[in-house]
């Protein structure tokens, strides 16, 4: 076999190389972190921006979708902070502990750091990287192994983020919301990296919202690593309502230990190109894992959800449930892979992905994959694509419900199958209302 031909560097790739070499000296962290950054950039440089021939990026040709690389966002000034203060309206009033990340930088003065529950500690990633023996030194890049180029780029250029530690047995009842905001008229790039460690038996709920200006082609590359200790319980909900021109690339790596409970839900309605990568490693026995996602896409939006679930230990149960509602010329991609290793006997894993196409020109691509090396397992996946059931719609209309309202009802029920699994009631209601607003607001 001939060796793989190294592709020509694109403009964006060349620009990223320049950005990295210029920013390098000022990026936070000691020599170990610097070495990690350098190695990660090499990984990125070797692979380049993902394209169709990279199987996990088959349907999202980032090389074509990301023509240029934007400059790194400067530290947020007073203006930016003032604009950011009003962000996160979707979950406003729910009384969550809010942490603000403005243009990629953690802003303590906007954040609620008072009355931290016992066992809970929060710091900025930049500070944690600079500390000689902080949590990043132990965990960063070591939760789930991945050679993904976008993640590597994040590792190379990560500026700030949040580090949360929940001590063994601590129960943090008040959900923690990370509000990611991009501001300003100039297109910038942000690279945030966060780390959440839940020690044995700890429990917490995390929310993430991502938003920014509508008319600016800014670029977000964000990553979250999470360690869920034995018997711990965690739920995380990520809401992406980026501006219409934005490119949003997100990676979550989660390592889950024995007997823990892990839940993750994506809700995506904003952004021009959105990629959510979720890599979950079930390392111990008896884990209960639940993963869900809803994409509501219109216009020329393109969203890609990539799930890689690694059942490495016996007797874990996982449920994966994803829905997409597509209008305009939107494209939704779902690639979900469940791997069951030889040791992972008695695995019970079920995945269902469904897409609803509302327009003549929307597109849906699904790749639900199973990779099984253990015989005593129950694994399955299902996938459907289609349009609304016209008979049911007619039935509703015959009872006097207008077409659009009837559609909205049916579609809400369709995404409700995922949203119903969201824990905090306030979030469930807010997402349900956001869905309804999206539906009634479409052309």
């Amino acid at each position, binding site marked *: *076999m001939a060796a793989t031909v190294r592709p020509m560097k694109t403009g964006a790739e060349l620009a990223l190389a320049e950005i990295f070499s210029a920013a390098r000296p000022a990026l936070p962290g000691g020599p170990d972190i610097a070495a990690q950054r350098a190695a990660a950039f090499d990984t990125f440089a070797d692979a380049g921006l993902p394209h169709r021939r990279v199987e996990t990026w088959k349907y999202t040709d980032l090389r074509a979708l990301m023509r240029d690389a934007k400059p790194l966002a400067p530290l947020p000034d007073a203006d930016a902070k003032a604009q950011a203060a009003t962000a996160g309206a979707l979950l406003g009033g729910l009384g969550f502990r809010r942490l603000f990340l403005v243009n990629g930088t953690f802003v303590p003065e906007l954040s609620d750091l008072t009355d931290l529950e016992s066992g809970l500690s929060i710091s900025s990633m930049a500070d944690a990287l600079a500390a000689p023996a902080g949590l990043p030194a132990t965990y960063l890049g070591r939760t789930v192994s991945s050679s993904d180029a976008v993640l590597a780029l994040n590792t190379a250029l990560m500026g700030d983020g949040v580090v949360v530690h929940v001590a063994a047995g601590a129960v943090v009842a008040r959900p923690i919301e990370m509000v990611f905001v991009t501001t300003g008229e100039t297109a910038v790039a942000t690279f945030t990296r966060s780390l959440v460690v839940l020690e044995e038996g700890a429990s917490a709920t995390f929310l993430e919202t991502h938003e920014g200006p509508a008319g600016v082609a800014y670029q977000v590359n964000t990553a979250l690593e999470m360690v869920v200790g034995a018997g711990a319980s965690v739920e995380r909900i990520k809401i992406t309502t980026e501006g219409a021109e934005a490119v949003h690339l997100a990676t979550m790596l989660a390592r889950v230990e024995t007997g823990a409970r892990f839940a993750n839900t994506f809700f995506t309605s904003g952004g021009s190109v959105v990629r959510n990568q979720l890599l979950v490693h079930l390392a111990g026995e008896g884990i209960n894992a639940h993963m869900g996602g809803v994409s509501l896409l219109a216009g020329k939006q393109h969203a890609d959800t990539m799930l890689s679930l690694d059942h490495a230990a016996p007797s874990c149960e996982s449920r994966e449930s994803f829905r997409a509602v597509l209008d305009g010329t939107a494209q939704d991609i779902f690639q979900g892979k469940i791997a069951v290793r030889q040791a992972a006997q008695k695995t019970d894993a079920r995945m269902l992905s469904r897409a609803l196409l509302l327009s003549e020109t929307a597109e*849906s691509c699904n790749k639900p994959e199973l990779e*099984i090396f253990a*015989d005593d397992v*129950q694994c399955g996946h*299902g996938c459907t694509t289609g349009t609304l059931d016209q008979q049911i719609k007619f039935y509703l209309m015959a009872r006097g419900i207008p077409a659009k309202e009837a559609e909205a009802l049916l579609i809400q029920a369709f995404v409700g199958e995922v949203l119903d699994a969201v824990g905090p009631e306030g979030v469930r209601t807010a997402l349900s209302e956001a869905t309804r607003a999206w539906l009634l607001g479409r052309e």
Partner: protein
Amino acid sequence: MAAVQDTVEQVRSIDVDQYKYGFETNIESEKAPKGLSEEVIRYISAKKDEPEWMLQWRLDAYSRWLTMQEPEWARVSYPPIDYQDLYYYSQPKKFKAPKSLDEVDPEILKTYEKLGIPLREQEILAGVEIPEGERPKIAVDAVFDSVSVATTFKEELKAAGVIFMPISEALREHPDLVKQYLGSVVPATDNYYATLNQAVFSDGSFVYIPPGVRCPMELSTYFRINEKNTGQFERTLIIADKGSYVSYLEGCTAPMRDENQLHAAVVELVALDDAEIKYSTVQNWYPGDAEGKGGIYNFVTKRGDCRGKNSKISWTQVETGSAITWKYPSCVLRGEGSSGEFYSIAISNGRQQVDSGTKMIHLGKNTTSRIISKGISAGKSNNTYRGLVSAHRKAAGARNFTNCDSLLIGDNCGAHTVPYIEAKNPTAQFEHEATTSKISEDMLFYCMQRGLSQEDAVALVVNGFVRDVLQQLPMEFAVEAQKLISISLEGSVG
């Protein structure tokens, strides 16, 4: 003592002698010089007495092939193939296209007899007891290494207007038909192995069913690789003209050899308006021994083009052989209202690697497709279903239903499912479901409590698992397939 554990032990102990078709026929052969070059292609073309356009078609493919790369995306691994260390053409010495069976070399006739393939026209596939007079007729084209050695029932088929002959002969007798359709479904640009096939293919079957004709009997081709270090590159072309119907069967075996042998075939099907083609395969190439030594590399491109409205193409395959299987019988659903079907049983044992599935490409309006795939993995094998279902922009009302189930016997094997589902039309309705399970200990115990031996119990459960697909096969073939499944899982199946 766990019954399944026991089964696993037995599967592990499977030896090479389970392969019942591993004998070798001693017959002198005449071969092209070893290796691949323009000269070898000219040699093959000259042997076949081909027209100039055909030689040119081969040479075009060859120059294209030189620039191509072997695909790497399948979940199979094997040492690099030295394409210069193969013979690309081998025919029995003193071979002259036989006019009747009496002219066929008795050694070859014996070989097919041993394989249970009837070349005498009154006979029928061995092992099926059907009273005289009720036996269905099957016409057979027997391909031995690179050449077709016998074709039966020619006269009776001719009377019905059906053309069934070696493709080399069709090139001489029906050049226009061949020229019109050859390469129209699988073009030279298609893939590495198909392009190689286009350059060097030696023989294969050609079938043409004229408009409105229902082919009066099943047609079948039986492939046998005998010669050492010889690649087999056959090419089959079936055209069902408007409103016609044909059912075609394909079987294959090879001697047991320590070295790997390459089989890169191309099958092209064309169904015009309201025509139907049913293509069934029982693939039983030598799978190699328990340690993975030897066996056939089966890299096959099979594609059907539902060119006409309301046409139908149905693929049924029972895959038990080959060291490596790389095979995706597909349907291009071009004609309005056309439909495609894929029914598959893929069994892997020992060190076999199977990467197989289908593509259903919905281009026309109201096209439908159905995929039922049953994978069974045992031993240290890996068994992958890989499939694509796509609806293009204009494929309004397209429908697909896919069901792929995997069964694992033992925990040293792997079962994988890699479906791609692409919808670009809102009225396309796709449903896909896949499950992976094992033969449950409780189910085996239940059967054994009713008096079935452990092997019978496993066989019963496996047969239940594959039943939906077996039902698609013509009766005589279903019996053969069922036996084959038993042999393939011998140790676990009685």
